[in-house]
């Protein structure tokens, strides 16, 4: 095994490409070492920033680039940074959200394992932009190899003066702490993450105040996803206009998509935003079609928190606006493909069990609601469903949506609602006939 994770990427196609950049070096076995990273232009952006740019200029450049948060929400990164109050006498903190745990998503892991310095460099630039001198990398605890790689890279960065005191003689000090999670999906939600760093249960916080005003220890704090931060050094090196030249007008740049499920070539692919989902699934350079020659049944386009797409909606550009228009979301870029022999009730049961397990329990609609949903869906799956169960599901979903402290409640119900709408016949069949409509057999 050349790499720790044998996951497929499209790095080879990207080599020498003037636009795609995040995955350019992820098939280089030594890219994780500082020496190789420097050879490939590493830390040049960090030097430029510290030597020639004011924090406001960095924020302005990232704003101009159109970069939006790649963790799922798609909020403009530069604008988020600009929310940190300039005159606050408090410390400021930057947290890299490396708690990758949205089912269907495994892209940040590749960056951390294979190109850890670009994550650190992106964090450093973000930290400087908001006036932060202590930054955190919050990595999920199960990712032992990522933790090792980021730890080693951090040590190297300190030893060669890319982090620490008076970096490059600029007078700027920057320290970094790697904080590891311990098995809680909730800590990928930004306020859960902050609580977890503070040594609390990873429960959501009520906003406002937003973290940019009051985050870690009541100080202004910015939380950015790994992939968003990894794009920042490239934006500084090649300019906002270059970044803007990729993707669509409102969804600029490139995005990493994790393609999984019933697909011939599962893998992580970097493409420009606006790339066709149809092409990602069927083109031989990407997914190469549905496995076992089966027909497509559904696609979950952005991780399990996003509504399912029916096959007729798959011809859609992968950008924030187009997916919203199609009734779903770009989310984290975790594209999960389901073939015709997949039972919708079984699939939804998997998802609701997950959300019920991961609900932090702080607010009632999510804590109680996800449990009720699981009970009813389990009953239907077991062939004990009743005639009014679907109305009950509709009602509970409606009472969770938009009524929770954090997005986990919405995430739990939106996929259910989409299948209750688009596959209602299949739900009804399951209740009436006490079995699946399809013949499902996922052997091993």
């Amino acid at each position, binding site marked *: 095994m050349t790499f*720790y994770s044998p996951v497929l990427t499209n790095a080879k196609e990207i080599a020498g490409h003037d636009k795609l950049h995040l995955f350019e070096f992820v098939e280089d076995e030594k890219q994780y070492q500082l020496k190789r990273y420097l050879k490939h232009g590493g830390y040049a952006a960090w030097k430029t920033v510290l030597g020639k740019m004011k924090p406001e200029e960095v924020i302005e450049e990232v704003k101009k680039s159109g970069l939006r948060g790649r963790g799922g929400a798609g909020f403009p990164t530069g604008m988020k940074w600009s929310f940190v109050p300039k005159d606050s006498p408090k410390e400021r903190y930057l947290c890299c959200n490396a708690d990758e745990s949205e089912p269907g998503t495994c892209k940040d892991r590749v960056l951390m394992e294979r190109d850890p310095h670009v994550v650190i460099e992106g964090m450093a630039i973000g930290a400087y932009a908001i006036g932060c001198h202590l930054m955190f990398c919050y990595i999920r605890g199960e990712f032992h190899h990522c933790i090792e790689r980021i730890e080693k890279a951090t040590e190297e960065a300190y030893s060669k003066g890319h982090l620490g005191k008076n970096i490059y003689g600029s007078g700027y000090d920057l320290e970094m702490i790697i904080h590891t999670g311990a098995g809680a999906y909730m800590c990928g939600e930004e306020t859960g993450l902050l609580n977890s760093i503070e040594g609390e249960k990873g429960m959501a916080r009520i906003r406002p105040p937003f973290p940019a005003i009051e985050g870690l220890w009541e100080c202004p704090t910015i939380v950015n996803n790994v992939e968003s931060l990894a794009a920042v050094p490239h934006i500084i090196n090649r300019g906002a206009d270059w970044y803007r030249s990729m993707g669509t007008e409102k969804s600029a740049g490139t995005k990493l998509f994790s393609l*999984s499920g019933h697909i011939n070539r599962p893998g992580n692919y970097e493409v420009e935003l606006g790339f066709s989902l149809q092409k990602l699934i069927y083109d031989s350079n990407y997914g190469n079609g549905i496995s076992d020659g089966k027909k497509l049944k559904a696609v979950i386009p952005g991780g399990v928190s996003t509504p399912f797409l029916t096959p007729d909606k798959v011809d859609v550009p992968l950008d924030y606006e187009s997916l919203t228009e199609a009734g779903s979301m770009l989310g984290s870029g975790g594209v999960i493909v389901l073939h015709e022999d997949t039972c919708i009730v079984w699939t939804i049961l998997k998802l609701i069990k997950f959300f019920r397990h991961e609900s932090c329990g702080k607010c009632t609609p999510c804590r109680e609601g996800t449990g009720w949903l699981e009970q009813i869906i389990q009953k239907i799956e077991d062939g004990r469903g009743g005639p009014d169960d679907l109305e009950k599901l509709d009602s509970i979903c409606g009472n969770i949506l938009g009524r929770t402290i954090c997005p986990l409640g919405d995430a739990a119900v939106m996929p259910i609602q989409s299948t209750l709408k688009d596959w209602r016949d299949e739900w009804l069949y399951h209740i009436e006939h006490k079995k699946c409509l399809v013949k499902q057999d996922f052997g091993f």
Partner: protein
Amino acid sequence: MILSEKTVKKIREKASKYPKRKGAILPSLTLAYKQLGYVDNEIYIEISEVINVPQLEIAEAASFYTMFPKKPRGKYLLQVCNNISCALLGADAMVDRLEEKLAIKRGETTDDGLFTLISVECLGSCCTAPMIQINDDFHENLTREKLDKLLESLKNGK
């Protein structure tokens, strides 16, 4: 002390970096778990003395996270991802096979103390499904043959 000198030293080092003492709770629990394979009240008391945070606050945090089990588990912790991408590729059947081969149910430990089997939520290995995490290591793109071989090698002490 149940915590070793080495662990205590590592906890102190890590704790010194945090602006507030409570920040050291999760790293301390993680280091304690690494040494012992579990954490419990006695450990909370010891950590409490090292980082100077009330024991109750440590216990409270520990109760929330699945990676801080209260009892020791088998020498090999087999964690099968059971979320959707792995399930679409046979993760349920994989757990069944493990249950059969090890003659235990999920959540249980074999009599010889060698294996504990649990099914867990997504481990971020969706494009290389199905997968299993054994202690710190991910084993991805699993097939029946690969899994059987893996199990044999663990039984034979690698």
